[in-house]
């Protein structure tokens, strides 16, 4: 409500948000299309596939669900599998809160409701150097949101167009961006415990446990390491308010 909250250009901020997410948005396209065509192969209609991408909007969970899909749909198994794959969002939502508390309720509610690995991670990176603004967040999350069901529907209707995202290295885009974000988050020795504990537990879980437990277990291990190795002097000064 302060006057200085308005000292930015809406168009510039929106464009910054959009440009920050753009590479990840492109990287998601082949996967959205692949999901759509897999869904149709499993007996879902294009309308059902696109409804799923609009309402669930969670790539990992949707790939797992489509892989399990039968007719009639095993509703309980699909819902439980989705819950497990998406458990990491509990941690992510907790980390998101301090970053967006100064935004209006509507923007906060929208961001929490449709945050993805990609938009969440990008917002965290941006939030390290400056306060997030409403048009920045909208430019970040809204195009990325519609991108997913749009290409998913095309993939379902024109199934089989993208059978192998690895051909363009699209399967590595997500990994490359997240590696860069980890490098960007690195703050010297204090950053080592969450990365080492998270990475190690994730690797062991990935090799020995079924499904995608590795993300949640790695996340929990790294978070606990962050609490255990926390030192008062390691505290950084609070971020400066915008601008």
């Amino acid at each position, binding site marked *: 409500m302060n006057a200085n909250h308005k000292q930015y250009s809406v168009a510039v901020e929106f464009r910054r948000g959009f440009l920050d997410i753009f*590479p990840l948005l492109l990287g998601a396209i082949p996967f959205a299309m692949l999901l759509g065509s897999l869904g*149709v192969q499993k007996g*879902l*209609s*294009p*309308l*059902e596939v696109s409804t799923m991408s609009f*309402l669930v909007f969670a790539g990992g*969970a*949707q790939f797992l*669900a489509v892989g399990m899909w039968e*007719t*009639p*749909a*095993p*509703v309980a198994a*699909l*819902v439980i599998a989705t*819950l497990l794959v*998406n458990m990491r*969002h*509990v*941690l992510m*939502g907790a*980390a*998101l*809160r301090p970053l967006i508390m100064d935004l209006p309720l509507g923007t906060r509610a929208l961001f929490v*409701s449709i945050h993805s*690995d990609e938009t969440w991670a990008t917002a*965290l990176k941006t939030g390290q150097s400056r306060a997030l603004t409403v048009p920045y967040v909208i430019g970040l999350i809204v195009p990325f949101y519609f991108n997913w069901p749009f290409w998913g529907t095309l993939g379902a209707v024109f199934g089989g167009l993208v059978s192998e995202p*690895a051909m363009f*290295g699209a*399967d*590595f885009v*997500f*990994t490359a961006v*997240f*590696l*860069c*974000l*980890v*490098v960007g988050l*690195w703050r010297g020795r204090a950053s080592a415990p969450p990365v080492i*504990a*998270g990475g190690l*537990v*994730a*690797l062991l879980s990935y*090799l020995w446990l079924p499904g995608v437990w*590795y993300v949640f*277990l*790695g*996340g929990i*291990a*790294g*978070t606990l390491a*962050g*609490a255990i190795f*926390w030192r*008062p002097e390691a505290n950084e000064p609070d971020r400066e308010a915008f601008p």
Partner: protein
Amino acid sequence: MTGDIFALDPTNLLAIIGMALVTLVTRWAGYLLVGHVRIEGRVKGALEAVPPAILTALVVPMSLATGPLETVAAALTILAAWRLPTLAAVVIGVGALVLLRQIT
């Protein structure tokens, strides 16, 4: 295959709505729970550790357990990210992997 683009099976719809609801619960749960905790001390340390922990966990299978080419590309991406902007580092990492896959 019926070929009916607009088919909407009630059981499929039920599954989709159930999936959507539990996903929404996971997206809101942490955000709402942390509102009842003072973010200081070890709680702050834990919350600050969430991003590096989750991001590292997410990249582990592709970086360390897919194949030697992917591990090399991941190492190159990390090196590039130390000096270059994100976009350049991503282009280098993805480009290197595409190249490596073609020549091996």
